[in-house]
């Protein structure tokens, strides 16, 4: 079967088309067209939707809703999303960022998917026509997901609460050794009152560092204050081994980089 593209005005119709065997949703093409070019013949039909809702960014009262077709470049240049620009720019080079979408990033296997790491730390909600799901639930079940992601929503943290770090061997654009996103709320006395930390490459998909989060509560962001969190950073992780780095190396340097992110 030759490859064919079907374009639909609505997500509903695209979802219907995706039910046929051998079909796959086409976002920016960085995953799907690549697979086809590389000889993945399991996909014979590409489906896309030109629904404008998929390409919109709405920010109201600190609540953000980003259409799944919004590109990394669009996020990086959006004036209301400047705190996320660093995470959006962590994806690819300029051309890839003009193509790679928020929706696609949710499906990118490690070492890709740096923006999904950020969304996990933001505790985003992922919407499809079937309803909404917390991102963590969505990521866990993403391999069997068939419904088109339409939007992701989250509450924008106050300026300075969101931190992001990507470590790569090649600069300025290289894939991740690991990536870390964190949303930290500080109490008046400077101690951490709430923390969400998400990790990239420490499993085959973004994961939360719950033990480290817990160990941060009530602590100050000092070398001594974060020490228990760093000691717990690797708990529950199963880092990937790939051409970039081994699981051993990723596990070894995770606390180092988490420490540097927390102390910046």
């Amino acid at each position: 079967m030759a490859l064919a593209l079907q374009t639909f005005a609505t997500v509903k119709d695209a979802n219907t088309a995706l039910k046929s065997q051998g079909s796959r949703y086409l976002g920016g093409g960085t995953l799907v067209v690549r697979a086809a070019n590389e000889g993945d013949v399991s996909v014979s039909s590409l489906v896309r939707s030109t629904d404008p809702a998929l390409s919109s960014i709405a920010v109201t009262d600190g609540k953000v809703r980003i259409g799944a077709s919004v590109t990394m470049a669009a996020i990086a240049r959006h004036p209301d999303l400047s705190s996320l620009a660093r995470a959006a720019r962590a994806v690819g080079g300029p051309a890839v960022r003009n193509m790679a979408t928020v929706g696609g990033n949710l499906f990118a296997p490690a070492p890709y998917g740096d923006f999904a790491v950020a969304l996990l730390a933001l505790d985003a909600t992922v919407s499809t026509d079937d309803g909404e799901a917390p991102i963590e639930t969505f990521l866990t079940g993403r391999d069997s997901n068939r419904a088109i992601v339409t939007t992701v929503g989250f509450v924008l943290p106050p300026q300075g609460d969101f931190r992001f770090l990507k470590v790569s061997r090649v600069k300025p654009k290289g894939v991740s050794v690991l990536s870390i996103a964190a949303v930290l709320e500080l109490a008046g006395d400077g101690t951490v009152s709430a923390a969400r930390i998400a990790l990239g490459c420490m499993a085959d998909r973004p994961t939360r560092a719950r033990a480290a989060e817990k160990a941060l509560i009530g602590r100050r962001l000092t070398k001594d204050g974060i020490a228990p969190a760093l000691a717990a950073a690797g708990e529950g992780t199963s880092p990937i081994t790939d051409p970039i780095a081994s699981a051993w190396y990723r596990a070894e340097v995770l606390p180092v980089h988490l420490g540097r992110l927390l102390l910046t």
Partner: protein
Amino acid sequence: MAKVPVQFTLNGSEKAEFIDSGTTLLHALRDKIGDTSPKGGCHQGTCGACSVIIDGELRLSCLTLAETCNGAAISTTSGLSEGGVLHPLQRAFLDTFATQCGFCTPGMIMAAKMLLDHTPNPSRDEVVEALSGNICRCTGYEPIIQAVLTAARSNSQNAA
């Protein structure tokens, strides 16, 4: 095999072709239209040799399906020089010896053009960032960075 129509402008001139559905823009440009300036270095989105500008955005033609470009304005390196006069970037790449094998050059020039169109006087870091999606195996990048900075300087001198 079902053919689908595509229509867009390439370097300002109208193009219309019937192509197989699912054909990448890179193949459509090279094999159907005959513009071989975008190169296929990886077909994975990892080398940048196929970079083109679509509606003012730098894109990888190897990962873009041609039929998604209907109505678009596409620019490639082959359309940069006008009336035999080289674009300042082309001039700078030539004058500063920034080409060796030449295979990455058209993609590099497209990426650099995108930068200079929006940032006429870029810093070195901005040049590095703009070229970061493009692989060169011959030059070690420094000559290319210098060529882009040279082109920016010559632009600003011409504007002054």
